[in-house]
């Protein structure tokens, strides 16, 4: 059922999912409990976790250096578990703005940020982000300074990427928590920048 109280027949693919899962459980390959736990586990992974990493890098220069040196280790240092994640953090500067895409599929630092949004996985984003990044950014409402270069990272193999945005002016003296609250998922993909609202 897709809505409480409203019966909907399963689609072909929903039938496939149920059938596959039941067969795998019957064959002792996995359990319903494992599926449920994994679903819940992924629910808990969200952009807020990445925002904490960014906020810490903004307040601590030594943490920032560690983050750029070894992204995975730096996440773990904050108590964020990121199994199997090999994270490279790329830093925005006034000279260069970073943007992340996976042209081949939809690779994304899921174990840190959770499941990626639809648009990140879309043909349009994946086709155009590498070739006309500024046009794509403008569609997101982001317009860079004339002199700023763009670095597009195509996540083609085993590494995953996080953009470390620049800390905006007007945030002097803010707590880490408040800083984290302005770091959105889109800022960490590179299609937006944080705003001190």
């Amino acid at each position, binding site marked *: 059922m897709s809505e409480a109280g409203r019966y909907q027949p399963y689609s072909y693919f929903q039938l496939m999912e149920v*059938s596959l899962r*039941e067969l*795998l459980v019957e064959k002792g390959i*996995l359990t319903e409990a494992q*599926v449920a736990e994994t679903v819940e586990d992924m629910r808990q992974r969200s952009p807020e976790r990445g925002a904490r990493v960014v906020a810490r890098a903004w307040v601590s220069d030594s943490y920032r250096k560690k983050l750029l040196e070894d992204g995975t280790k730096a996440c773990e240092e904050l108590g964020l578990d990121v*199994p199997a994640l090999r994270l490279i953090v790329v830093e925005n500067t006034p000279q260069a703005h970073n943007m992340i895409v996976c042209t*081949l599929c939809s690779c994304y630092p899921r174990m840190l940020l959770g499941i990626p*949004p639809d648009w990140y996985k879309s*043909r349009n984003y994946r086709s155009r982000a590498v070739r006309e990044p500024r046009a794509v950014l403008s569609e*997101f409402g982001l317009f860079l300074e004339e002199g700023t270069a763009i670095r597009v990272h195509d996540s083609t193999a085993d590494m995953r990427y996080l953009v470390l945005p620049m800390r905006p002016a007007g945030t002097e003296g803010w707590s880490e928590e408040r800083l984290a609250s302005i770091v959105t998922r889109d800022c960490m993909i590179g299609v937006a920048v944080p705003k001190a609202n």
Partner: protein
Amino acid sequence: MGGQPAGKVEPTEHDYEEWERRVDALMMLLSGVRGARKLMTVDELRKNIEALPPDAYERMSYYERWVTSITQTMIQRGVITTEELGRRMEQVRKRHG
């Protein structure tokens, strides 16, 4: 598909349905990221998605492509058979009403 001409990026998102989240979970479990027996790789998932017909991107949603690919991989690996899958899908359809 990088560099191919394409349309405007619509910043769509949707709140994933439970069955989609379960497909995602199945992939994590079967590829050994979370505890269960490792029975496939993400590379096979990708290969089988690449093998879908060209109109798959129009006809199928992201997780519909995933469930198809995962299931195909399980058949290729001999974990389940086409026969088992077909019979179970018929049963589930009848059971669900």
